[in-house]
């Protein structure tokens, strides 16, 4: 079975631009979460979606938004890009409602570089 897939794998943007990152969860998983990982640090939680509804949001500005589609895939959008948005963006899916005691399965991530 396919794992979590993310696209694109790499992306280069300039300050002020907008970007959309995509994620397809493991088949059967209805919960998708997004994380930002800056080099040398642990992943930081951005959003979680379950059944197309936002269940949680981390401490990120409103420039970050996301949505989940009926097929449980998800998109992360970032507007007005800043140099500090350069990071690895990870998507994770989990079974059930993605609550406590649910392992999360990560994709390979999208490496976003802002020039």
């Amino acid at each position: 079975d396919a794992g979590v897939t993310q696209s694109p794998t790499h992306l280069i943007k300039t300050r002020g631009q907008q970007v959309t990152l995509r994620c397809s969860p493991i088949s059967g998983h209805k919960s998708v979460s997004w994380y930002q990982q800056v080099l040398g640090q642990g992943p930081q939680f951005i959003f979680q979606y379950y059944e197309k509804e936002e269940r949680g949001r981390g401490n990120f500005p409103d420039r970050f938004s996301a949505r989940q589609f009926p097929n449980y895939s998800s998109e992360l959008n970032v507007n007005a890009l800043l140099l500090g948005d350069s990071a690895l963006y990870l998507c994770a899916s989990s079974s059930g409602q993605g609550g406590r005691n649910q392992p999360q399965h990560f994709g390979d991530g999208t490496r976003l570089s802002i020039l």
Partner: protein
Amino acid sequence: GQQVMQIPQYQHVQEGEDFTTYCNSSTTLSNIQWYKQRPGGHPVFLIQLVKSGEVKKQKRLTFQFGEAKKNSSLHITATQTTDVGTYFCCSNDYKLSFGAGTTVTVRA
């Protein structure tokens, strides 16, 4: 979220030796999950601990959850080059709260 602190941040180990990484929280945790991230890779789920004092083993890896559910440890015996990577402990209250991790390097 429930924040966890990990020590040490870096661990340089001689191949064949044992080492332990520790995870601490100021609050009681509902669970602890451990993930491993290889250089250039993504975090991979290793184990989950839920019960007070729980101990689980995976081959050379031993995971422990403290009696007060405020700390956890990962002990690796006979370190191999395949153990290289960053080990994260996380609490999971629907979202993962990662610490900075322990980055392990191995010298042959």
